């Protein structure tokens, strides 16, 4: 997995580079927007980590330019700006994800893994939490060594919960992941799927946070 790190602060860049290399990523580092655009053109990376505060070109303009060249290249924004407007502007311009400084390394790694899985080129496409493991390529779900038969929606629901293990997924965000705009959603459809998943995975695997949503506990 080839990462391009666009970051003007040398100390942060070197620390990040080392941390990412420790996790098995190959990291290329550039310090300017100009350089970044050149590298994207000549030796296109798999994922770009882009700091918005660059000395030469505004980060959002770099992002726009990258999008023109490589419409599908995943870009994760890294920035000290964290107001809601900044986030919306970043995602509107075509960023795949957005992380505000100062960030936790595990958080950055988790997000990179989501982007990696989306590319389908990850070395390991399995998410393993507790007694359940889920393969994002073969769509197989194995609990305690036994393969489970899940409906498409049950699989998508479980994947959303496992990818975000330790976090609560609100009902709204789960519903929007499961259904497209024109699908009719019965008001208790989500509960029905959760109920079915609990029957297959054990009652405690998916926890309800009353009034908020559901979570899979990170082990």
């Amino acid at each position, binding site marked *: 997995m080839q990462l391009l790190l666009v970051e003007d602060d040398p100390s942060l860049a070197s*620390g*990040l580079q*080392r*941390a990412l290399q*420790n996790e098995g990523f190959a990291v290329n580092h550039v310090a300017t927007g100009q350089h970044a655009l050149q590298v994207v053109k000549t030796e296109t990376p798999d994922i770009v980590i882009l700091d918005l505060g660059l000395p030469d070109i505004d980060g959002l303009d770099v992002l726009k330019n990258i999008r023109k060249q490589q419409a599908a290249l995943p870009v994760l924004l890294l920035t000290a700006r964290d*107001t809601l407007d900044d986030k919306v502007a970043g995602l509107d311009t075509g960023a795949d994800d957005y992380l505000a400084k*100062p960030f936790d390394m595990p958080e950055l790694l988790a997000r990179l893994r989501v982007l990696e899985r989306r590319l389908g080129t990850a070395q390991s496409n399995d998410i393993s939490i507790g007694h359940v493991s889920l393969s994002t390529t073969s769509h197989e779900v194995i609990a305690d060594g036994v393969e489970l038969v899940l409906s498409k929606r049950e699989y998508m629901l479980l994947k959303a919960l496992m990818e975000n293990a330790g976090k*609560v997924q609100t009902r709204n965000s789960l519903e929007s992941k499961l259904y497209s705009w024109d699908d009719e959603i019965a008001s208790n459809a989500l509960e029905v799927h959760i109920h079915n998943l609990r029957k297959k995975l054990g009652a405690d695997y998916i926890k309800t946070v009353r*009034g*908020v949503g559901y979570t899979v506990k990170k082990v």
Partner: protein
Amino acid sequence: MLINFLSAVQGYRGGMNQAELSFDEQLTNIAQIISDIDSFDNRELPEMVSETLAYQIWTKEGELQERTHNAPVELLTHLENGFNFANFSNYRWRTYALFDEHHQHWVLLAQRMDIRYAMADRIIVESIMPIVIGIPVTGLIIWFFVGRGLSPLYKLANQLHKKHVEDLSPLKLDNPPQELAQVLQSVNQLMQRLSDSVTREKRFASDAAHELRTPISILKIHLHNLLHEHPEITAETAEFQSSLSRLEHLVDQILALYRCAPDQFIAKFEMIDLYKIAQDVIAQQYQSIEQKQQSIELLGDAVKIKASPFAIETLLQNLLSNAIKYSPEGSELRISTGIKNAQAILCVEDSGPGIIKENRAKVFERFYRATDEMPIQAANAESSPVTGCGLGLAIVQNIAQQHHAKIELSDSSFVSGLAVTVVFSGVDE
């Protein structure tokens, strides 16, 4: 106006006196003429004048030689040169007696006073009338034009009056008069300077954010690498880690406080759902809740209010992180939303030590920490030291003020703990 009127009255009176004098002079002239005309037949006065004038001619011996038909047969005045007054034929007359040395007779002439008054009055009124009518007309005209002339000033005052506290956009006037254009220009220049300095300050906040956040990120990443490569020093770096978290939190809070201060924060109000924001905030902070094995529930229904989503999120983040911080491991937390007495309610309850009534007002001060007031054993009883920076509730207070909301502190419905209730003044169904 009054002065004009008084001077008109004064003028009238002066005019009357002047007219009197000229009428008297006229009488002497007429008397002379009558006296000089030899033939009695020719002494006939024009019809019109004869009604208002009367005369007698008396010989020196006291014999009435001649009189006009409206003159009495007796002496109409004393035989004494000069002016006098007399009453006859139902009128009051001004009289003039002249002894003609040449003809050796008296000419007694009389003129009706009412006619004299009427004529004098007419002359003077005609000369004063234009002024008397002119004054109010002029007044109206002045009023109209001054009003018109001042209308740009009224418009300007109105614009200034309507201006929102944070609105620093320039004032606009169509075709302002020259004098006002100068004022307008100066005010707009002032506005511009003010707006520039506000922008600079905001810019400073965001620059400061960048300046502070990048070094913190650097510390974090290098600490992460250090721990990754030397897992055996975890214990030694624990203090480092927690101080770093405090620093990170403090920077966040200072920036949030700055961004949410009433004079800095231009809130973009929109329709938001308190329940949905509560869901999001719980989801954001769920990891901290999970870490302390606390359980949380969200009660209530969708409550729509007009508010700034960013501010309300910050408010709730602060309330919830306080609740997590001050509640022991494995305890319960609760957030509820609802409508009470037509007011939107947002309530966060924890299972912490609570705050005694006397100290409840103090918690809104900056840099006040509840642990400062806690009995030592209670503070020690906390399984992990509470690392607040004391800005949380000051931020909450700021945001509440912007939304005209009240904050009420009470006991939570758990065994112990604090309930913080934010009461919004309006609710939109």
